[in-house]
């Protein structure tokens, strides 16, 4: 997926995406983070061909999404944040819509439904918000589409179902698939994503792998207030301060995505560490 110098605005005077460029390759689960209004959902809609760029290019599987070619759409499944499902049962949905996806995996669909404790006779409009998300996740995975776009997929899921959702995603995604997850619930994606896209004001601020983040950044905790010159960002937490700083000593540390997000929003110099990187 190549996006080059993308511009988009819902109105001529209002620009949402400003010269965004990014390249992504299959075999990754990418977390897309950004503040409200940063352009995350708009970017996802542009990738899915639901909006057309004002200028710039998007090329996915050699196609332009705005053409909405069936061959391209067969390789894409988009779970929007809010949606209305048709008035039919889960089984009927799979029967009527599954045939549009040549690689639709019925066995996987059944497995996923079982994991979410959904049964095929349940009527879609009668499902709760969380259950519809689980159902669509099951369907999306079963299409075996090469590009899965999930916008706030864990909203409405309870704690145990979030765990099931994570496990399912990790188990069923293969090396030929690319998953983009846009969310504000950073903890929900902490252990599943391997790459991170961070957006600010319609641009990509950081596009890198989690491994690279861990190599270059150190997230830790200390009792005393840190000197601002020694850290990118710190925030007061119970009993001390969570800090994020350059990993000068190559100390191993898990990346605290929430802290990183805040750091990038408050102190954009952190992005300089990753500038020029085009992680795949």
């Amino acid at each position, binding site marked *: 997926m190549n996006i080059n110098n993308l511009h988009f605005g*819902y109105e001529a005077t209002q620009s949402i995406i400003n010269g965004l460029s990014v390249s992504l390759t299959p075999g990754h689960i990418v977390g897309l983070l950004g503040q409200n209004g940063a352009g995350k959902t708009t970017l996802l*809609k542009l990738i*899915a*061909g*639901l*909006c*057309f760029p004002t200028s710039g290019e998007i090329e996915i599987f050699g196609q332009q999404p705005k053409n*909405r*070619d*069936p*061959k391209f*759409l*067969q390789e*894409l*499944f*988009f779970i*929007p944040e*809010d*949606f*209305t*499902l*048709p*008035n*039919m049962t889960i089984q*009927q949905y799979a029967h*009527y*819509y599954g*045939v*549009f*996806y*040549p690689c639709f995996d019925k066995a996987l669909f059944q497995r996923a439904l079982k994991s979410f404790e959904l049964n095929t006779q349940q009527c879609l409009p009668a499902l709760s918000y969380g259950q519809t998300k689980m159902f669509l996740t099951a369907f999306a995975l079963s299409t075996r589409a090469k590009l899965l776009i999930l916008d706030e997929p864990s909203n409405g899921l309870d704690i145990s179902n979030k765990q099931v959702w994570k496990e399912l995603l990790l188990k069923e995604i293969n090396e030929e698939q690319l998953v983009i997850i846009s969310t504000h619930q950073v903890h929900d994606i902490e252990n599943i994503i391997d790459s991170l896209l961070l957006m600010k004001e319609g641009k990509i601020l950081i596009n890198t792998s989690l491994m690279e983040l861990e190599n270059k950044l150190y997230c830790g905790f200390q009792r005393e207030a840190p000197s601002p010159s020694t850290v990118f960002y710190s925030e007061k937490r119970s009993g001390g301060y969570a800090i994020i700083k350059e990993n000068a000593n190559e100390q191993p540390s898990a990346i605290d995505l929430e802290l990183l997000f805040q750091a990038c929003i408050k102190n954009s110099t952190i992005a300089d560490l990753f500038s020029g990187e085009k992680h795949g």
Partner: protein
Amino acid sequence: MGNIKASIQFMKIELFLNRKLILWLSIVFGLLFILTAKTAPQLSPIYHIALFGGGILMSSAAFKKIHEKNTAMLYLTLPVSTITRYLSLWLLTGPIYLIFITFLYGIGMMISIFQGFFFYIDIFSFSHVCLNYLILNAIFLWGSVMFKKLSLIKTLFSLLLFGIILAIIKGIIFQGPWLVFISYRWAQSVWLALGIVAFISAYYQLKKCEIK
């Protein structure tokens, strides 16, 4: 999936989702045709109401899903080409609906014949009804793609506006002894052209439809 196969599957979905409406239409119009079969002359007005009234309502609502954000995203990302999507709904609300209502009318007519009524079928007039329905169908499908809300009313208003503008143009250009001769031919041609333009325009509007 080939275009024809996708089109059939797409139509199956539409028919399934609208199964209750189809059932009610069949019951209501079927009963009306059967009950009025005793008074044969009333069959024709009911046929016209069923065809034009019901058909226009359905055509106006055909692309409602693309205007509602919550339904549009899943609808537009379904792997179906725009032409398949468009032609499937045109087939359902146009020719198939026409055949369906004509079939119900035919049942009413058969009952009337069995009861001793005589029917004279004017093929020329019937083909005119069919053509007029298909033109109106194309215009209201265009309205369904174009207008986010109140597409039926807005399309009717557009038609009215178009008629007024046309009448003014006609009044200015075609005056004098040719008026009577030109009127009929001219009106027929404009009406047909309007249907064709609406049919093509609706497709291109659907193709460039975005979710904002």
